[in-house]
């Protein structure tokens, strides 16, 4: 996906004024946040499970090479071909080659965020392949030529009227007004594609080292279609998705749907190991698994390593007050919200995504919601430290912090300047005691008054009081 993260502030501004988006975000928040809260309340040992999940994810990352080698060994043994892709370009090249070598014309895809990272659809279409997204939200966005704005609910920003318009244009049938009917129409349109696709591409929520298994969780059943019906199945996955055992999966699947949307389990778990056996009636003849690096190995061993625990549930963005107000497109790349504020700079460069780690008040909601206890605010702060050290922020910000530090370590100077500041600002506030505008802080004063200081500092009043007493 094209990187637009450098335009965060401007895009956020536009989104704040988008009444339709604001309404959709409000609705979504109620479902996701309340849903998760209810599921967590019913669970009992939620915190213990989070601790366990963080541990097993950390263990996989600490042994990432061995886990990947074990996965490769078992997957290969079961008839899959395992490919390794260092870059986005490599991942696309590998998959396009598989398609062309096998006379593939049509590709049916279930959702994969890493495929968005590497721009897989564009590359396949450029090579003459027809690509159909089958997750309903992704299908809608494909028709709209838009990127997803949420990793679990990609079309959360769209209204049913907008979807109805897209369907009329794409399906050529009379315009619908009700959501169930629209869903049915999409089902019928996509059913045909499932049955005639030569290749199915799926993402993978996890891959299991001990069995060589890839797996996807859905409510729609599209991943099942895509991994069962076409003759070639291709999995594209980030290398950090590897977990150890089926028991690890059982633990993580208790966390994922609850954290994402408050569901106890998704309707389908598509747990796939290897290719169709000779006497089986259904299943693909070929299975290819593309393990993608594309920046992940840079996080291994770094102080951002904990981010690799992520199981892509979306809870962080659902609970983030900034995301709730601006939506996903403002973040300008594949991953929005807190996890996006960390992964985007990590994968596309801090210099291209500078506002993202700053788009946070460090309220901590994300850290509480993360099922694998990633310390998201701390990681965002580390990125701010990198920006500070590399002088990536405006010089005025750096200078202001340096000046503050200079004065605050010098009590005499501080006492003098704060005395002056308190008096001047108090005078500016006038009778109302409110400052309506102040150059340098118009980020504040555009939307709020600044309550004026009392006029004397605590330090000087306390000193005066103490000397009166003495």
């Amino acid at each position, binding site marked *: 996906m094209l990187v637009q993260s450098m335009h965060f502030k401007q895009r956020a501004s536009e989104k704040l004024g988008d009444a339709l988006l604001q309404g959709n975000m409000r609705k979504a928040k109620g479902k996701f946040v309340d849903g998760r809260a209810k599921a967590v309340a019913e669970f009992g040992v939620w915190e213990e499970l989070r601790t366990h999940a963080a541990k097993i994810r950390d263990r996989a990352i600490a042994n990432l*090479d061995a886990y990947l080698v074990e996965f490769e060994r078992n997957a290969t043994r079961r008839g899959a071909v395992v490919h390794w892709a260092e870059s986005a370009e490599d991942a696309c090249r590998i998959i396009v080659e598989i398609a062309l070598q096998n006379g593939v014309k049509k590709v049916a895809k279930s959702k994969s965020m890493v495929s968005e990272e590497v721009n897989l659809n564009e590359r396949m279409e450029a090579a003459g392949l027809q690509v159909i997204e089958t997750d309903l939200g992704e299908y809608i966005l494909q028709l709209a030529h838009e990127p997803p704005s949420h990793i679990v*609910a990609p079309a959360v920003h769209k209204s049913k009227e907008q979807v109805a318009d897209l369907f009329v244009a794409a399906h050529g049938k009379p315009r619908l007004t009700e959501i169930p009917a629209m869903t049915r129409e999409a089902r019928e349109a996509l059913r045909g594609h499932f049955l005639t696709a030569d290749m199915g591409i799926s993402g993978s929520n996890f891959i299991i080292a001990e069995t060589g298994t890839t797996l996807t969780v859905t409510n729609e059943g599209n991943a*099942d279609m895509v991994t069962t019906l076409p003759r070639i199945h291709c999995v594209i996955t980030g290398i950090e998705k590897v977990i150890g055992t089926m028991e690890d*999966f059982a633990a993580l699947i208790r966390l994922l749907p609850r954290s994402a949307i408050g569901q106890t389990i998704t309707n389908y778990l598509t747990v796939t190991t290897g290719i169709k056996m000779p006497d*089986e009636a259904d299943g693909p003849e070929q299975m290819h698994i593309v393990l993608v690096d594309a920046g992940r190995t840079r996080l291994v*061993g770094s102080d951002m390593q904990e981010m690799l625990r992520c199981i892509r549930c979306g809870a962080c963005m659902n609970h983030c007050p900034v995301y709730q107000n601006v939506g996903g497109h403002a973040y300008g790349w594949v991953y929005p919200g807190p996890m996006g504020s960390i992964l985007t700079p990590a994968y596309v460069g801090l210099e291209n995504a500078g506002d993202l780690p700053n788009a946070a008040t460090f309220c901590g909601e994300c850290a509480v919601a993360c099922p694998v206890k990633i310390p998201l605010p701390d990681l965002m702060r580390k990125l701010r430290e990198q920006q500070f050290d590399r002088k990536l922020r405006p010089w005025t910000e750096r200078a202001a912090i340096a000046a503050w530090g200079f004065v605050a370590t010098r009590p005499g100077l501080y006492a003098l300047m704060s005395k002056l500041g308190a008096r001047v600002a108090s005078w500016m506030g006038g009778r109302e005691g409110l400052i309506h505008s102040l150059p340098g802080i118009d980020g504040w004063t555009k939307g709020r008054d600044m309550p004026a200081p009392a006029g004397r500092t605590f330090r000087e009043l306390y000193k005066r009081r103490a000397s009166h007493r003495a």
Partner: protein
Amino acid sequence: MGARENILRRIRAAQGRTGSEPTEAEMALVRETLARREIGPQPAFAHAPDRLAQFRKECDRLGTTHATVRSEAEVPGEVARYLSETGLELRLAGWREYAGLDWPGAGVAFEGRPARDGDATGLTGCFCAIAETGTTLLLSAPETPKVTALLPETHLCVVHAARVLDTMEDAFALLRQEVGEPPRSAFFVSGPSRTADIEQTIVIGAHGPYRVHAILIEP
């Protein structure tokens, strides 16, 4: 290929290890850890005193309807009842293991073959069921095609009470014991398909079935 070695080398270097291939000793240690099959914390309701009640409760939560009969012989009758009450044709594609039941007696046209697009109803059994989540687990094999549970609008699933387990971990343990490794497809079904991708409004019946009906056999 160079990519594999490069990726492994980078991972190892980042963690203070040399080379581009894990050593035999490292692999042995990892395999030992994996073989322990550590189980994480499970919620209390995962071990409900009445397992079948827990299974039915979760089916209700997810929209899987259910009925209970005393033996496989009663399955055709229950299928006929369900299909006519639901307003569906008394016809289905089913797993061959059920071909020998008295379908003609119940007035149901049973075809023992994998379901095709256009079949309205599919009948399967399951390897086992999971009470904690109201899930049935279907394993792929020549006589147990997945498409029968996936393509039709209605999925009927025969579940033997003795095969209802507490948790997914129990299901994996049974799979290892009876089958060894997971087959090509281990398909966990928990309710009819759904989507909420349009305005977060839940619609039942996305790409998979609109209806899942569990027929519990409890002698």
